[in-house]
């Protein structure tokens, strides 16, 4: 049973990664900034619904949230390597800076959630 969930997760990742990088650059090239905004609306919304609302990507309650961003990130780097002949190692500086920003935001959000009224009201109710 377990391998089926991982199978489903991998399929969700493959589809969302391919959809992002098939549509996003072309819409940006055709319609500029508004094309990028439109791409976010049409791709990420349906891919979020598919991966996280319907649960194609496995996310049990109370466990670590695994986001479709992992798949999109991996797809972006591999797409660049295969299609544009970029060097994989050259992705590392930007990747490390992105990871630092993500970890900082995660730590900051833990602090900020303690003082946000919406979050605290929900905690008191339940």
């Amino acid at each position, binding site marked *: 049973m377990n391998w089926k969930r*991982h199978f489903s997760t*991998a399929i*969700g*990742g*493959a589809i*969302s990664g*391919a959809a992002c*990088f*098939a549509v996003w650059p*072309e819409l*940006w*090239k055709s*319609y*500029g900034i508004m094309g*990028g905004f*439109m791409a976010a*609306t049409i791709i*990420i*919304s*349906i891919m*979020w*619904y598919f991966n*996280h*609302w319907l649960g194609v990507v496995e996310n049990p309650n109370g*466990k*670590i949230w*695994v986001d*479709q*961003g*992992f*798949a*999109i*990130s*991996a*797809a*972006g*780097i*591999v*797409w*660049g390597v*295969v299609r*544009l002949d*970029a060097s*994989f190692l*050259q*992705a*590392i*500086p*930007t*990747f490390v800076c*992105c990871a*630092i*920003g*993500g970890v900082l*935001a*995660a730590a*900051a*959000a*833990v602090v900020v959630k303690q003082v946000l009224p*919406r979050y605290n009201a929900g905690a008191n109710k339940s």
Partner: protein
Amino acid sequence: MIAFLSTYYDAIGMTPAGILTTIFGSFCVTFVVIICWGKLVEDFGPAGGMLSAAIIIGTFWVVNHKLPGFGINPDCIASPDGGIKQYGMIYQAYRGACPWVDMGTTIAIGLWCHSLFMGKPGERLALVRESLPRVAALVFGGIIGGAILGLISYSGANLFGG
């Protein structure tokens, strides 16, 4: 100060200014996603999630990844120092030569770390161990999807020469 911020380091392929904008841009998008997305889904259900995709990711795409072009510069504007001019906060290292690092990277790492930090201190190792196979499956799927998509450059179907 200006000279220091715009000094290009060949070893890391970035300027200090590029490092700062990358870290700050990824901080912004991750923070907003962590704080807003879950609440919007709680308030509006699936429509809230799809709305978040449009307003959060759309807005922060403009912050982090925008490049000039309204159908007029699809090959990007060449920078006098080599490579392309970059207008987004997430700086693609080596003057844009690095394979595309998307802001999905930072959102995924941020959400992963956030739920790790929110877990109880004693259970964190178990949480990490439970999540790693799922991450591996997702990354594997992404690699397959990205690699197969990249193959279209070998079928000669290059829209706009890109």
